[in-house]
């Protein structure tokens, strides 16, 4: 292809949020930039396509954010979810720069909207993209192209070659032909490895084959592996991934936000053997959302069933698939291919353990079961009013934690020290900051801050 004959200063691997911020920043330094993106144009933008907001510090009220959100509060929120597994310097760098990102994003075409209905709790901390992440990605592609950035879709980078702690070659495949490019600088922004199911199964165990991947099928960690094999330094637990419980009927890849299920707190959750395995009412759902991926992953066949009755059907955001519905528990068990006696007995036991009290769907109401091995500590109401409804639950992987270790300039290191012309941004280095857990909206903040840094550094390196 003609494009590969040209000389480029900077190659950006991956055209998601981080890659685009990097490409734009490098081009603004005057560099000739090429983005290599493995997806076709319609699927460009990786997981960034599925996002809806980014978390933004702000000392004064600023559209679309309400109130104030200062560095310290932001940092403490992060510490809570990561259990302290975070690099404080880098974390504070991201948080501090997030405030400036809002204006930068608007200048580069991103538009915002007040927080979406049903997400009022995020209106102070998270700025919502008008139209969501794909609209953001589209705007950045337009801005990048106006700056002269070239994009090659359907182009997978297969290898990044290092010699003397420098990138000497970027190998890629386009329409079944191999090309070798020799840019002056490289920014890696190709995400994690969660879509390589074999790798996931190696890391997590065979159960991972039953996991669903919430985002793009193209983040297969090819570049990550190529570089880690050449003694590049990594961070993040290589065996861990962030997973939430999503609708078991979701597609294997790219089901996105709409496959989430919010019914768990109002339900009884059983596994394939009709046994309950965790307190469904432990806390309000957003706070407990993330642990259910792991919980379901630990069950036989990595599947769970959330069962409610008609009292609760209108209490949560609708999911993309209609619930399975039946007039009796027997029929419900049949539809779910569960043991009829097993399900009935678990529900009966649960119903008997329910106590009198007032039910408040929106706050911890203390309405608890009494006398069960695993109590349900809030919102415990008997499942007794037909029709009955059920959703199947499966683990849905959001991202993996393994990534490149970078410094505060986004530079990538090998065992010999900083690599002369290689930077990383986004999910592929987020493990440097997020050791475990996840803070809503932080992925896009990391990608924007580090994308700008990496692109700016790479751009000024070549001039």
């Amino acid at each position, binding site marked *: 292809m003609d494009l590969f004959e040209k000389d480029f200063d900077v190659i950006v691997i991956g055209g998601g949020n981080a890659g685009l911020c990097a490409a734009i920043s490098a081009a603004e330094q005057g560099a000739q930039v090429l983005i290599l993106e493995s997806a076709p144009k*319609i699927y460009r933008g990786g997981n960034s*396509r*599925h996002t*809806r907001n980014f978390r933004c510090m702000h000392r004064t009220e600023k559209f679309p954010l309400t109130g104030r959100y200062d560095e310290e509060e932001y940092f403490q929120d992060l510490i809570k979810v990561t259990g302290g597994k975070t690099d404080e310097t880098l974390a504070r760098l991201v948080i501090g720069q997030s405030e400036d990102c809002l204006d930068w994003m608007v200048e580069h075409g991103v*538009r915002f*909207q*007040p927080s*979406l*209905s*049903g997400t009022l709790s995020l209106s102070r901390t998270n700025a919502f*993209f*008008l*139209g*969501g*992440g*794909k*609209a953001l990605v*589209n705007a950045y592609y*337009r801005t990048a192209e106006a700056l002269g950035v070239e994009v090659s879709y359907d182009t997978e980078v297969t290898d990044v070659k290092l010699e003397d702690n420098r990138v000497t070659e970027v190998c890629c495949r386009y329409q079944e032909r191999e090309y070798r490019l020799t840019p002056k600088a490289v920014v890696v922004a190709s995400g994690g490895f969660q879509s390589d199911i074999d790798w996931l199964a190696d890391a997590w165990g065979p159960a991972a084959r039953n996991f669903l991947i919430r985002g793009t099928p193209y983040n297969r960690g090819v570049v990550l592996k190529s570089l880690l094999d050449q003694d590049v330094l990594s961070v993040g637990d290589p065996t861990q991934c962030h997973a939430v419980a999503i609708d078991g009927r979701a*597609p294997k890849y*790219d089901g*996105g*936000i*709409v496959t989430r299920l919010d019914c768990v707190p109002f339900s009884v959750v059983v596994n394939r053997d009709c046994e309950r395995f965790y307190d469904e009412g432990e806390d309000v759902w957003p706070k407990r959302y993330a642990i259910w991926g792991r919980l379901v992953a630990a069950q036989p066949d990595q599947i769970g069933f959330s069962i409610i009755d008609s009292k609760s059907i209108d209490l949560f*955001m*609708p*999911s*993309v698939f*209609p619930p399975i519905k039946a007039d009796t528990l027997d029929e419900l068990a049949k539809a779910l291919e569960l043991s009829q006696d097993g399900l009935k007995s678990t529900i009966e036991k649960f119903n008997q353990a329910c106590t009198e009290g007032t039910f408040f769907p929106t706050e911890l109401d203390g309405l608890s079961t009494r006398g069960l091995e695993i109590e349900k500590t809030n919102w415990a109401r008997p499942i007794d009013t037909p029709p009955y409804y059920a959703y199947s639950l499966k683990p849905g992987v959001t991202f993996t934690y393994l990534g490149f270790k970078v410094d505060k300039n986004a530079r990538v290191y090998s065992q010999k020290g900083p690599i002369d012309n290689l930077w990383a941004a986004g999910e592929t280095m987020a493990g440097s900051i997020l050791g475990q857990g996840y803070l809503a909206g932080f992925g896009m903040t990391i990608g924007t801050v580090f994308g700008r840094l990496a692109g700016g550094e790479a751009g000024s390196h070549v001039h």
Partner: protein
Amino acid sequence: MSIDTSLEAKRQIEICNACRYCEGYCSVFPAINNTKVFDKPSLTFLANLCHNCRGCYYACQFTPPHEFAINLPGILAEQRQESWQEFAWPRGFGQLFHRSGLAISLLVVIGAALMIWLINLLPGQENAEGFYRLLSHQTMVLIFIPAFLLPIFALVKSTRDFWASINGSALQVTHIKDALTTALSLKNLSGGHGEGCNFEDEDRFSLARTHAHHAVFIGFSLCFLSTSVATILHYFFNNPAPYDLISLPKLFGIPGGILLSVGSAYLAYLKTKADPELSSPKVWGGEMAFIVLLFLVSTSGLFLYILGGTSWLAELLAFHLGCVLALFLLTPYTKMVHGIYRVAALLRDAQLKSRT
């Protein structure tokens, strides 16, 4: 209304209802959030509320080939079309002219032929000036009064049926104010940020279509005003056509004609650039023919003014009047009718919003 369209619209809207990312683009998504069941009346209402700005298509992470196969502008356009055809009176006319550009063209030809025939057959007005010499004022009135009133009757009937079908209730002044401001400003084509819609160049936001539409709307209104003023002058002030350049009919008519002509040409051009799959491809021909008809009405009117003193007068007059006749008669059965359904849907939206 076809069951397939409704089922498919319901399927897609339920996905949007679980997503809501596009909430900021237009009135449709907030209305979806406030809808409990997606039955036929609510789908018809939502479909007519949609202005086909296409923002939600280019922003959607679930468009084909994704298995969720979301194309909300497309399915809402189908649903909307079906409702226009269903509520058209008589229904068969709606089905014919919405779809068929050929039928529209034929009607124009028939209209023009009729005029030629009348010009040759009837004596005209002897001591009158301008085109009344060829076709008397009386003849024109005899043709155009029914051609004006019949469509109005049809429109009133369709509007009432539509309003009842979407469960519209008694209107308040605030609803009317809200709906008219939204309609006239084309707020639902603004993308929520005021930068316009996605039409002629994929996901690029642009005000081109908004501007073209404003030109057509204002141009058409001025032409209509010009004709109304002329009628008043004729009957009440004994001041028949032709008029001087500095006269009310001309001061409205000439800028109106130019705006309508330029605006419709621009709309037609934009339409050739837009992806037909994001609208109802079945009616592309009918819609295009209708835009061309708008262009012909205004342009032939302008030519009639410029070349009125030449030997082309008879042909130009016949063609222009044929176009105007077709436009009038077709109003209830072509894209022209969208204005009425849009405003009705916006009124209903204003009602529903004021309740919550």
